[in-house]
C-alpha cells in the first residue's frame, strides 16, 4: 500500500472516530436530559 493510500485511510478512520465521539457526547447529553425529565421507565 502506498503512503498516500495509507494516509487517506488513516484520515478516514480519524474522521469516523471523531464522529463517533461527538455522537456519544450528544447521546449522553440527550439521555441525561430525558432521564432528568422523568422519561425513564
Amino acid at each position: 500500500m502506498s503512503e498516500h493510500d495509507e494516509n487517506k485511510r488513516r484520515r478516514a478512520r480519524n474522521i469516523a472516530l471523531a464522529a463517533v465521539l461527538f455522537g456519544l457526547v450528544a447521546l449522553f447529553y440527550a439521555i441525561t436530559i430525558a432521564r432528568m425529565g422523568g422519561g425513564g421507565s
Partner: protein
Amino acid sequence: MSDASFISQRNEAGNAGLDAAYGQGLTGAGEARPADYLALLKPRVMSLVVFTGLVGMVLAPGHLHPTLALTALLCIAIGAGASGAINMWYDADIDALMSRTQGRPIPQGKITKDEALGFGCVLSVGSVLVMGLGVNWVAAAILALTIGFYVFIYTMWLKRRTPQNIVIGGAAGAFPPMIGWAAVTGDLSLLPVLLFAIIFMWTPPHFWALALYRSDDYARAGVPMLPVVAGDRETRRQILIYSLLLVPVTLSPWALGLVGPLYGGATAALGAIFLALAVRIWRSTGDRAAKHMFGFSILYLFLLFALLLAEHGLGWRA
C-alpha cells in the same frame, strides 16, 4: 476420517487461507477503512434484529421517552453487530473457506483478527452499559445474554460440533423483541415470549433452506450443518417438521387474544404459503425450492412483525 482429523485439516486449510490474505500485504494492523469495520457488524442481519426489537418496544404497554427508545434501539443494533464482529474473529478460519463468507473483512485481509476481537468486545460492553445506565438493567441483562449466547453458546460451542447448532443457537436471534419490550416495561410477559418463540421456530427452516444449496460450502469448512451430516433428504424432512411446528406458534398470539384479527388472518395466509413451500422442498430434489423458501422466509418474518406493528398503529386489538 475421524472428527479430530477432519477438524484439524479444516483448521489448517482455513489458516492457510488467512495467511494467504495477510501474505498478500493487503493491509496490516490499523490500516482498515471505516467501511471495513462497518462490515464486521453484519449490517444486513442487524436490520432484521433492530426491526424485531422495535416491534417488541412498540407493542409493550407504557411509555418510553423517544430519546431513550432510540438509545435502546441503538444498543440492540450495536450489541448485535458486536457479537457479529466477535463471531467473525472466532470463525475467520472457516469464513476463509466458504464462498458465502470469503468476502468478509478478515478473510480479505482488510482487518486483523485482533482488531475485530477488540472492536467487538468494546462495542459489546459499551452497548450493555449504555442500555443499563440509559434505559434499564433488565433490558441490558437480556442484551448481555443475547451477545453471550451468540458468542459462547452458538459460535464457540455449538456451530462446529452439532447439526443442532442453529436450532439452539437460533435463540440468540430471537431475543431482540424481548429486549425491546423490557426497555419499555422493565419486565417481561407472555407476548414477548411468544415473539421470541416465533423467531426461534422460524430459524431452523430458514437456515436449513440456505444450507441445502450451500452444503458444499459448509462441508468444505467442516461445519456440521444438517445437510452435511444427515443428508439432503433428512434436511428436507426436518424443514417440513419445523414449518409445521412454526405455523401454530405464529398463530398463538392471536389465539390467546393478545393481538387482533388482522394479524391472525394474514398470518394464517402467510403460514399456508410457508407450509406450501416446505412441502415443495420435501417433495423436490433440486435447489430451486430451497432458494424460494430461503427468500420467502425473510419476507415472512418481516411481514409477521410488520403486521403486529400495523395492527398496533391502527388500534385493532382482539
